[in-house]
């Protein structure tokens, strides 16, 4: 079962995000009001650990399961798409308190209205795909 490992990573991810309260609408609100260190602590230590992991991997000490180099795809250079797209994403993130991972996780916790959000987010991605060539990137 080559998919089983991905199922387990997903389960682990879901548990961590609920227990860390990163899926909490209230924690996102608190973060954007600068009233708590909690979310900054999570993102900060996640990025610090991530940097450490990738630096060790880069030195060749960690290989992938197939023995290949650990590889992070490079994002294209650009400015407008990242800043404008980022701001639009930020509006939605702060409004519904959930980014794409937590949307699914919250559905699992029993927040059924997330189905509406996920459907709308899929539609939003579809609209981007249709307008893609007309947008500045």
């Amino acid at each position, binding site marked *: 079962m080559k998919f089983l490992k991905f199922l387990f990573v997903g389960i682990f991810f879901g548990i961590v995000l609920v227990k860390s309260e990163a899926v909490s609408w209230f924690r996102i609100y608190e973060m954007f009001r600068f009233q708590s260190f909690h979310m900054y602590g999570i993102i900060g230590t996640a990025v610090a650990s991530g940097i450490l992991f990738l630096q060790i991997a880069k030195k060749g000490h960690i290989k992938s399961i197939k023995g290949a180099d650990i590889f992070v795809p490079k994002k294209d250079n650009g400015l407008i798409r990242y800043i404008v797209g980022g701001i639009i994403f930020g509006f939605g993130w702060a409004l519904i308190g959930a980014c794409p991972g937590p949307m699914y996780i919250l559905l699992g916790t029993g927040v059924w209205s997330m189905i509406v959000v996920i459907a*709308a987010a899929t539609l939003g991605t579809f609209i981007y795909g249709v307008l893609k060539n007309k947008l500045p990137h």
Partner: protein
Amino acid sequence: MESLLNPWPWYVSGPLIALVMALLLYFGKTFGMSSNLRTLCAIGGAGKISNFFKFNWRDQAWNLTVVLGAIIGGYIAVQYLSNNSGTDLNPKTAAELKTMGFENPGSTLVPNEIFGLDILTTPKGVLLLVIGGLLVGFGTRYADGCTSGHAITGLSSLQKPSLIAVIGFFIGGLIMTNFILPLLF
């Protein structure tokens, strides 16, 4: 056991999120949850309308499996790994939200005032969820990533585009929370 059932501190949670990224890289994949929205479009036949969705979605089946796992993980976390202790919000935040009309801030993961099923019967309630979803879905693809792809993976690999995107996330989030939410509630 009690420390497992209580909310986990940030210095435990952060490194564990990095572990998710590390595991996916170890398996030869990348951590990016928003890509699944594009895959859902492709499955729905959006490739007929835009080339952006013309790809073999089966290549993304591993990521949909992560999504399925995440849903199960959310269920396990609230059913078996919680003691309903609630979120220990800053009292200032809680007081502020109460004056905005949110009852019992932090007692649940999401406010009933936005996500309660009875809210779905009001036009304002449906509109907020739909607009929020549209903004996230459109913005994440325009920005080429979300919190997992840019804030965690992109920043960890020291990529400038991801730093720009994360700055964008925060500009948008700060404007929404500080200036637009108070008008809505």
